[in-house]
């Protein structure tokens, strides 16, 4: 289609959908004021039945924990895909040379940058760890904490340069952390099965509300998710940053044009 035809067709579709949307609009749930019985039950149950203050975490890792298992594997699968697609053309070797856009100077990081990056890196790391640990009581959890910790590593790149970054971030290690996190989640579900109960049944002692250990199985699952997300995002960062390096094979990389 020509761009103009396409735009016209799209606008026609948008206009065509309008009457249906307008007809449905008065029937939409009233914003901020409509019953949600599901939420009421869970909000009442989580603090009592699971000793957990953050109901989002309780839903995530317990009531609807099976969904989260699937989500974790979506993450794992996407990261595996990224690895395959990037490494496939690059090979497994690394390059010591920084890639650069020609005509631009490369400025080595100054000492102030290194210092600031180190400070912030450590702070981000600690914050991430704390966010992940306090999943059951305050906002946050394995998903946010995992990304934060991985971002903390990113500051290593800024401060220590590529060598420091590669010394610290081993792709094999990240793969292992990610896989271990996913396996912990799968394994947590089996605890219940071992006792003759359904998969993912939470049978560990529930602990006191507000403590890091509250929620029985939840802190364990949370730790698994933290590892998986940390490993996954760490892997993403490693593979992406590798793309900014000069690749010795890159010259043969483009396909020969087809006849």
């Amino acid at each position, binding site marked *: 289609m020509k761009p103009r035809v396409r735009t016209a067709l799209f606008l026609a579709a948008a206009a065509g959908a309008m009457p249906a949307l307008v007809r449905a609009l008065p029937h939409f749930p009233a914003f901020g004021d409509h019953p949600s019985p599901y939420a009421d039950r869970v909000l009442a149950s989580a603090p009592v039945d699971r000793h957990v203050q953050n109901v989002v975490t309780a839903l995530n890792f317990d009531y609807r924990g099976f969904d989260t298992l699937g989500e974790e594997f979506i993450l794992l699968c996407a990261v595996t895909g990224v690895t395959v697609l990037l490494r496939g053309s690059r090979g497994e070797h690394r390059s010591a040379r920084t890639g650069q*856009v020609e005509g631009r100077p490369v400025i080595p990081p100054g000492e102030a940058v290194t210092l600031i990056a180190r400070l912030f890196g450590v702070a981000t790391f600690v914050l991430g760890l704390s966010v992940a640990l306090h999943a059951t009581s305050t*906002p946050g959890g394995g998903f946010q904490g995992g990304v934060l910790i991985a971002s903390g590593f990113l500051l290593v790149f800024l401060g220590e340069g590529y060598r420091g970054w590669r010394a610290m971030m081993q792709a094999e290690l990240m793969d292992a952390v990610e896989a271990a996190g996913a396996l912990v989640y799968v394994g947590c579900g089996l605890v219940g099965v071992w006792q003759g109960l359904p998969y993912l049944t939470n049978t560990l002692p529930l602990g006191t509300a507000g403590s890091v250990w509250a929620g029985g199985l939840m802190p364990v699952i949370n730790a698994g998710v933290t590892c998986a997300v940390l490993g996954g995002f760490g892997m993403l960062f490693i593979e992406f*940053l590798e793309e900014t390096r000069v690749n010795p094979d890159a010259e043969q990389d483009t396909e020969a044009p087809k006849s």
Partner: protein
Amino acid sequence: MLIDILQILLAVTGTGVALTRRPVRQVIALGANGLVLALLFMALQAPDVAFAQIVVGTAALPMLFMVVLASMRMDRRREDRREGMS
């Protein structure tokens, strides 16, 4: 009130992202849009989600976009040079 303002702001920044054709500028627009989104989540009493949005939408994602754009630029320069030589 706050929610309304944030929602309208989101509609505006979202439109800005869609209509910013130059990818490098769009990444900046994307970051701004992510920030407004996080604020809206906060106003909608979803601190967990807002947290995730800030971490992912304003830090990790723009960085990935930037790396890809930089890498594409490196490639293009190299190709230009090669064509120039031949």
